[in-house]
């Protein structure tokens, strides 16, 4: 049976998302994989310069 619950994040605040096991793992969705590969290539060609990086 699917479960739906709200969770508390590590800072103790309620997140707004409703956690549900109905949400599909799309890590292998061809569109999302293609977009991630394109993004990786974009950042390889155009890295964020050091002076703009905030850690």
């Amino acid at each position: 049976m699917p479960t739906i619950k709200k969770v508390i994040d590590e800072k103790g605040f309620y997140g707004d998302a409703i956690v549900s096991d109905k949400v599909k793992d799309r890590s292998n969705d061809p569109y999302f994989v293609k977009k991630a590969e394109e993004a990786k290539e974009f950042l390889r060609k155009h890295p964020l310069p050091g002076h703009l990086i905030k850690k």
Partner: protein
Amino acid sequence: MNLERYPYFAKNDYHDFEFYSEGPNGRIKKAVRFLKIVDEDPAFYNLAFGDVSDETDAIDDSIVSNNNDRDMVLATVAKTVIDFTNIHGNHYVFATGSTPARTRLYQISISALWNEISIDFEVLGFKDARWESFKKNVNYEAFLVKRK
């Protein structure tokens, strides 16, 4: 950020989110996915989202939903960034449209919602071969977002 948004659902690892757009073209399922693309310090994740095909349950980037709720959809996606970074850390999130026209729509929406978005996020835009702080009315090729 107090923009009107849709209720949204997360998988328990907080990499996948789903919500429903509602408008003149019906109820359309949207999916958001964060995928790590640079595993360094700081890490970079790609944010991608799109419409879920009723037929295949896969993302179909050819769908143009035209549900007259662009800003509400963007506000919902922005909330997923907040939840994702609350759970996984304040990483950089990269985003670009699937076409130049869609990237331009993101730029228009970010500009329209800038007073709210800029409260929570630092936004960088890529244009003319360099990254810069986001400015309204500039057409960028890509965006990097980080929580303040």
